[in-house]
C-alpha cells in the first residue's frame, strides 16, 4: 500500500511540476465537462441578480411615472376646462416630477392590525425625515411619523389618527380623508349637494403642506346622505392594498418643508399602545 501511495505521490509531483501550458491543455476538456454545472448555475445566479436590479429600477420608475401621470392628468383637466385662473397654481419646477424617490422595504408591521403602521429599513442615515410621504405606484401609503438612524415608521391612512386633505379628481370637491375601518376610509366634510359619484377617484389636494398634490388615495365605494343632512356619508376604498405591499418609495423633499410640522401626538400614543418602537440597532451592511 505504501508503495502505491509513493508512486501516486511521485506521479502527482511530476504532474504539478509540468509547464503551465501543458497543464492547461491537459485539463481543458475535463474542466469543460465537470465544471459545466458550476458555470451554468453561476450564469443563472448572475442573470437573476441582474433581473432583480432591473426590476427594482423599473419599480422606482413606475413610482415616478405614477406621480408624473397624476400631475399631467390634472394639468390636462385644467386645460380642458379652460380654467386659466387655476393654471398659475401649477408650477412644473415645483411639481412632484422634480422630487427624488427613495426605495424602502417594509420589514415589520404592527402586530394588532398589520396595516396601520409599517417599519421600513430606511432612516435618518438615508435622509428620511418625519412627515415625509411614502407612496407606491398605485398611490399613497402614508407618512413617516418616527425615524431612527436606519429605520422609520410609516403611519397609513388606516390608522385612526391619520387625516389627509383630499379632493375628488373629477369634480374637485374638497374634503378630509379619515379612518373608517381597517379596509375603508371616510371622505368627510363634503356638503350634501356636492358632486360625488361611486367610482370617483379621491386624490390628495395638497392642502396642509405635508402631502403633495395629485397622489391617489382611493375610490369612492359608497355615498349616502349623512344623518345630519348637512354632509354626505362617503366611503372610500384605498387604492393601495396595504396587506400586499412589501416596499414603498419615500418622497425626499426639502427638509425646510417639514421642519415646521411636528408629528401628531396621537400617533405617538398609538405607537406606545401598540408597543411599536423604531429599531435603533445599527444595520449590518
Amino acid at each position, binding site marked *: 500500500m505504501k508503495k502505491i501511495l509513493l508512486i501516486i505521490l511521485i506521479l*502527482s*509531483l*511530476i504532474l*504539478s511540476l509540468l509547464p503551465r501550458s501543458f497543464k*492547461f491543455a*491537459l485539463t481543458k476538456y*475535463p*474542466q469543460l465537462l465537470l*465544471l459545466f454545472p458550476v458555470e451554468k*448555475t453561476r450564469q443563472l445566479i448572475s442573470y437573476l441578480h441582474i433581473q432583480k436590479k432591473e426590476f427594482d429600477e423599473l419599480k422606482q420608475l413606475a413610482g415616478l411615472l405614477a406621480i408624473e401621470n397624476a400631475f399631467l392628468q390634472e394639468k390636462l383637466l385644467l386645460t380642458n376646462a379652460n380654467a386659466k385662473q387655476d393654471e398659475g397654481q401649477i408650477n412644473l419646477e415645483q411639481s412632484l416630477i422634480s422630487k427624488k424617490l427613495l426605495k424602502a422595504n417594509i420589514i415589520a408591521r404592527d402586530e394588532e392590525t398589520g396595516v396601520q403602521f409599517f417599519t421600513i429599513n430606511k432612516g435618518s442615515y438615508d435622509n428620511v425625515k418625519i412627515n415625509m410621504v411614502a407612496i407606491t405606484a398605485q398611490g399613497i401609503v402614508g407618512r413617516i411619523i418616527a425615524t431612527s438612524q436606519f429605520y422609520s415608521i410609516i403611519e397609513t391612512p388606516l390608522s385612526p389618527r391619520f387625516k389627509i386633505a383630499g379632493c375628488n379628481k373629477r369634480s374637485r370637491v374638497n374634503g378630509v380623508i379619515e379612518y373608517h375601518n381597517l379596509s375603508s376610509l371616510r371622505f368627510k366634510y363634503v356638503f350634501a349637494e356636492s358632486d360625488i359619484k361611486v367610482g370617483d377617484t379621491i386624490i390628495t389636494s395638497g392642502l396642509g403642506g405635508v402631502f403633495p398634490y395629485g397622489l391617489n388615495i382611493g375610490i369612492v365605494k359608497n355615498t349616502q346622505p349623512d344623518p345630519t343632512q348637512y354632509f354626505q356619508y362617503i366611503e372610500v376604498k384605498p387604492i393601495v392594498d396595504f396587506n400586499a405591499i412589501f416596499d414603498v418609495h419615500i418622497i425626499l423633499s426639502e427638509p425646510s418643508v417639514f421642519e415646521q410640522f411636528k408629528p401628531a401626538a396621537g400617533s405617538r400614543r398609538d405607537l406606545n399602545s401598540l408597543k411599536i418602537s423604531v429599531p435603533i440597532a445599527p444595520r449590518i451592511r
Partner: protein
Amino acid sequence: MKLVFKLLFLYLLFLIQTIINRPQIDLIVLGLVIFSLYDTPITAIVLGIWAGFLLGLVNQAYFGFHIIILTLVAYASNNVHRYLYKYKLYFLAIVLLALLFKYLTTLIILRNVQPFGIWLLSTLIMLLIALPLENLIIKMFYKNLLRRF
C-alpha cells in the same frame, strides 16, 4: 459500483463548494475525511486522487498539488482511524487537522490562500456541518457498518 457513487457524491460536494465560493467551505475535504475514516485504504487513496483532481480543475496552474495534499489527507485519516477514531470528538479533531494541513501546505507551496480569519470562520462552519454530513454519509454508504456497531 459503490465506489462510483462515492466518487459522484464527492463530485456533488465539490459542485456545492465551487458554487457557494464565498465563504470557501472545503466540503470536499470534509467528505474525503469521512469516507477515509470508514473505508479501505485503497478506496481512500482513489477518493483522495479524485478530490485532488477536481480541485485542480478550478486552479489549473497548480494542477497536481491538490492530488498530493488530498491523497495524503485521505491516507493519513484512514491510518489514524485505526488508533484514534472512537468518539465524535476525534472525528472533529481529524477534520480540523486535515483542514489545517491543507491550509498550511497551500500556504507554503502555493502562497495563495484566503486570510487566516476567513479560514477560521469557514472552518467553524465546517465543524458545525461535519457531524450531520457524517451521519448522512454513514446512512447512505455504510449501513452495514452501522448495524455492526
